[in-house]
């Protein structure tokens, strides 16, 4: 039986909880390390190491480096491991100062200046983005079925239909109620970026009425480009489908909720960026 391990760095355990919703691995893989469900000291030799969470502390870094040596294949799982996720909102002087102070006051793992993607420190063979990736995506990364194909974009997987007669003049804000069923969220004035977000999630947010915030990251059309190409393209989508003034769209596209998406672009990824190529990402 092949062996796999799950190493959780600084994150929320949402990836692990998602994995627990799948059971197809039980017959093929032995789970030998995952502190959330098993008592074991350190990662033993494994075929696949799934790493979730970002590198926030010196202990994260130590555990990461020690663990990848035991693995044949390393997979970065979830938005935090791939880009640092929402914690990138803390990449500001005043927040950094707070972190440094916290570290100095305590006898605990030292905090690094920022929460970093794991690929900044170790070689990653495969990337599985999503916040979190669905159980089906976890199984796809473990079993690598030749016929597995995720939709090009969340938009392709979404059941909502476009309505050319609806051309909103203002953004509806992100969280106003009264979402009309069955109709495209952009037509209702919501800031949805499902047209350019990697598919594979089954559009599980947009179908019940939550605009896509792009946690799966840029689709293949954008993943190897810089963010400017995407900003230009998504603004075109909105100018075609709505009458919302461009500055309003532009500022919303750069707001906090877009952090999970934007930081997956190479020009958002810091000084020594390591972002996945089309071939490495699921």
């Amino acid at each position, binding site marked *: 039986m092949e062996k796999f391990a799950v190493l*959780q760095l600084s994150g*929320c355990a*949402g990836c692990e909880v*998602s994995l627990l919703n799948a059971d197809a691995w039980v017959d093929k893989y032995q789970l030998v390390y995952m502190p959330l*469900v*098993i008592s074991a000291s350190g990662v033993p030799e494994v075929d696949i190491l799934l790493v979730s969470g970002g590198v*926030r502390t010196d202990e994260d870094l130590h555990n990461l480096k020690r663990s990848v040596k035991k693995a044949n294949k390393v997979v970065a799982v979830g938005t935090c491991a791939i880009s640092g996720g929402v914690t990138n909102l803390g990449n500001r002087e005043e927040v950094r100062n707070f972190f440094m102070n916290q570290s100095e006051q305590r006898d*605990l793992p030292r905090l690094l200046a920022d929460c970093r993607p794991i690929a900044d420190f170790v070689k990653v063979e495969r990337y599985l983005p999503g916040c979190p990736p669905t159980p089906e995506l976890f199984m796809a990364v473990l079993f690598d079925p030749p016929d597995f194909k995720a939709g090009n974009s969340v938009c392709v997987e979404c059941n909502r239909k476009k309505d050319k007669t609806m051309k909103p003049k203002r953004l509806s804000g992100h969280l106003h109620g009264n979402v009309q069923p069955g109709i495209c969220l952009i037509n209702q004035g919501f800031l949805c970026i499902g047209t350019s977000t990697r598919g594979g999630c089954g559009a599980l947010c947009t179908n*019940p009425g939550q605009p896509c915030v792009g946690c799966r990251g840029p689709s293949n059309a954008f993943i190897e480009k810089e963010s400017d190409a995407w900003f230009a393209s998504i603004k075109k989508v909105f100018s075609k489908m709505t009458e919302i003034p461009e500055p309003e769209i532009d500022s919303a596209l750069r707001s906090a909720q877009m952090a999970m998406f934007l930081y997956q672009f190479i020009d958002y990824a810091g000084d020594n960026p390591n972002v996945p190529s089309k071939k490495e990402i699921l």
Partner: protein
Amino acid sequence: MTTLTFPLSRIEGHAQVVIEVEDGDVKSAHFKAMELRGFAHFLKDQPADQMPVIVTRICGVCSTAHHVASVKALEDAYGVEPPPLAKKIRELMMLGQMLQNQATSLFIFTMPDRLGLSIIFQEEVSQEVAKEKQGIAGRALKVRKAGTDLITLAGGQFIHPVKAVVGGVTSGIPKDDAAAMKKQLEDALPMARELFDFYWKSSETLHDRIGTWGDDRPACYIAATGKTKPDYYGDRMRLLIPDNENIIDFQSRDFRKHLDFEETDYSYSAMTTYKGNALRANSLARINIADSMGTPLADEYLSIFREIHGNPANGILLFDIARGIELVYSIERSIELLGEDLENGEPAVPHTETDGEGFGLVEAPRGPLVHRYKIKDGLIEDIEFIIPTVHNVHSIELALMTAAKRYISKEKVDMELERAVGRVVRAFDPCIACATH
């Protein structure tokens, strides 16, 4: 001075226990939270109305509670009252979370302690245990899955829900979907009961072996659940004080009048006290505070529990058994709610965003959770998360002290200590991602 360090597993997040001993005398027992991401700091100056999407990322285990607390905090600030349909659907989200969490804590985190295993899945075990263990993992995953599916149905996304919005929810639940979910829960109920019965029996066996339910000093209990029966949607904070028959209740916005918070230099988590006393939150607090469960099967379990352990019950390992009663309640109550009309009626009311301060309270699986947002020009000026696990830190340390004294003497450290440390911490089911956030 000897320092004993115990890494922890089968809990959420990175924590360890450090016990200091001098000549067989236990000097201290510390519960150390080892991680920090800084949500309360990096969310400053961000748009307030985006919080319900972002704060779910504090925790993948308690996500639903953060999602609902966030929306309630904004509604409090904006002065919006959601319609009845929205409240029902939010209650269902909270029930799905409770069901999923209690099933995970009971059958994945703590069942191995009852059976002498390190994991509930796949391990080579003795024939005797293998016979008992037969099918536990499979059934546990099925019961858990019912909780996840309920979160998905009521909340949209399965880990970080999305359907609660300021003013209500994005949509109701179609009749057929509700009926299918009801059926799934009806099938899960007998499975959950069998597992819980087995768990309770195994806990009695464990008790007979070790001779204790753990630290059973009378304690202060805190919860945001209903007084007469559970209500995880949360209205007021309630405090049960030993030697006082009355329950003190107060609004979440007054929490600072009653609770004190203390930072330490050995943990990234703070700890809460009430007038210098340790607090206990989570399942046992709710069971001790509520008069009844309000559903037939859960009430049967509760009356047996109270007959044996009294009210209030105080042993640490009783947190685990209380969790089982709540598991049964969550399924029963969800079945009730899914039988009602969740399709028709206004899912949300309109609102206007204003500046101000808002408090959002829910009863999360680990206890009362409060989000406090101060909003200026639509941006977060100040933000605070009052986390249930933080209420328990002091009590965890007291219970660890009790366990350490039991198993450490001048002559030796009993091998049982390591297992006891794990059992004590898991009884509180702490969440470190939340506690440090």
